[in-house]
């Protein structure tokens, strides 16, 4: 097999070829630069109208960001409120306000019973004093009259019960109003059941002796221990 003859290059031809390549590269470079200049020109506002449009877009963007921040804050507030309601509900499913109003009702009943006992005792003292005064004379009768005067003071002092009861009734009314508003808010968000999935705030558990400080129990409290049960425990 015969090999083809080696190619021979004319030095002049090679020089022309090199010059041609450099020329092509230069043209392409120039084209690229023109293209980039065109892109740059299109990006750079060249008129007052397009600059105003860009400013408007920037302003709208700032407002949109501000609006987003506001919405985030509102969302955060709603979540916190829902957690507060969930905490209120989880801490006392029967109703915190109901519990408080029951306690206040017990205060009214307790003071009313005590007032009636005081009044009954005062009435009896008054009756005895009246009988005694009719049998006495001089300084002794005067002492009986002074006792009777003091009994009037007891009657007057028992006025407090009515006023106290009415004041507590006003407080109970206000608390029920608040409870109704909270319930209405819960209804807006789908009712109390919808709060079951909301994480409640952690209410610190009472510990040690503090955990035993529950105050007087209501008669309706299922955990209330009767004196009979206590007596049975102590034999």
């Amino acid at each position, binding site marked *: 097999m015969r090999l083809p003859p080696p190619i021979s290059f004319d030095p002049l031809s090679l020089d022309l070829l090199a010059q041609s390549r450099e020329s092509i590269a230069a043209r392409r470079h120039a084209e690229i630069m023109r293209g980039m200049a065109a892109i740059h020109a299109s990006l750079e506002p060249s008129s007052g109208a397009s600059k105003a449009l860009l400013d408007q877009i920037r302003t709208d963007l700032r407002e949109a960001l501000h609006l987003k921040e506001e919405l985030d804050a509102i969302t955060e507030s709603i979540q916190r409120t829902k957690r507060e309601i969930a905490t209120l509900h989880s801490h006392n499913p029967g109703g915190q306000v109901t519990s408080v109003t029951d306690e206040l009702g017990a205060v009214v009943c307790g003071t009313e019973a005590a007032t009636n006992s005081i009044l009954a005792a005062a009435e009896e003292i008054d009756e005895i004093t009246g009988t005694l005064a009719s049998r006495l004379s001089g300084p002794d009768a005067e002492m009986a009259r002074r006792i009777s005067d003091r009994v009037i003071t007891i009657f007057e002092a028992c006025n407090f019960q*009515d006023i106290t009861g009415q004041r507590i009734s006003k407080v109970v009314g206000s608390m029920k109003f608040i409870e109704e508003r909270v319930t209405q808010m819960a209804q807006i968000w789908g009712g109390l059941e919808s709060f079951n999935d909301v994480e409640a705030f952690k209410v610190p558990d009472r510990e040690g002796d503090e955990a035993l400080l529950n105050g007087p129990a209501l008669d309706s409290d299922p955990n209330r221990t009767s004196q009979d049960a206590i007596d049975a425990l102590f034999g």
Partner: protein
Amino acid sequence: MALNTSLPVLIVDDYQTMLRIIRNLLKQIGFNDVDEAKDGSEALGKLKEKKYGLVISDWNMAPMTGFELLQKVRADAELGSLPFIMITAEAKTENVVAAKQAGVNNYIVKPFNADTLRSKISAVLGE
């Protein structure tokens, strides 16, 4: 001048304890013919049955308030001039003015004492 304590008195209050207190204070003053009613409507019934010399009424009661009772008494041909004292915890000016305009003879704000009660009764009964 001595107070005419022989007059029958009707006390009206929905609060049993207050009825008891007023009754005892009236007794100390010298009134022994004292009847009780627990609201305005019951009082109105008693006023129709017996001739009273004085009504002492609370304001805030149900179903008929002391203010309604006062208005009905004043509107009644037979009861219109009956002495009427309001004893109430309602101490706002608008309450006092309304009661005065409705024809109440005197107004005592709770809590009160025997001297206040005595002086108001004396003023109302004109003695």
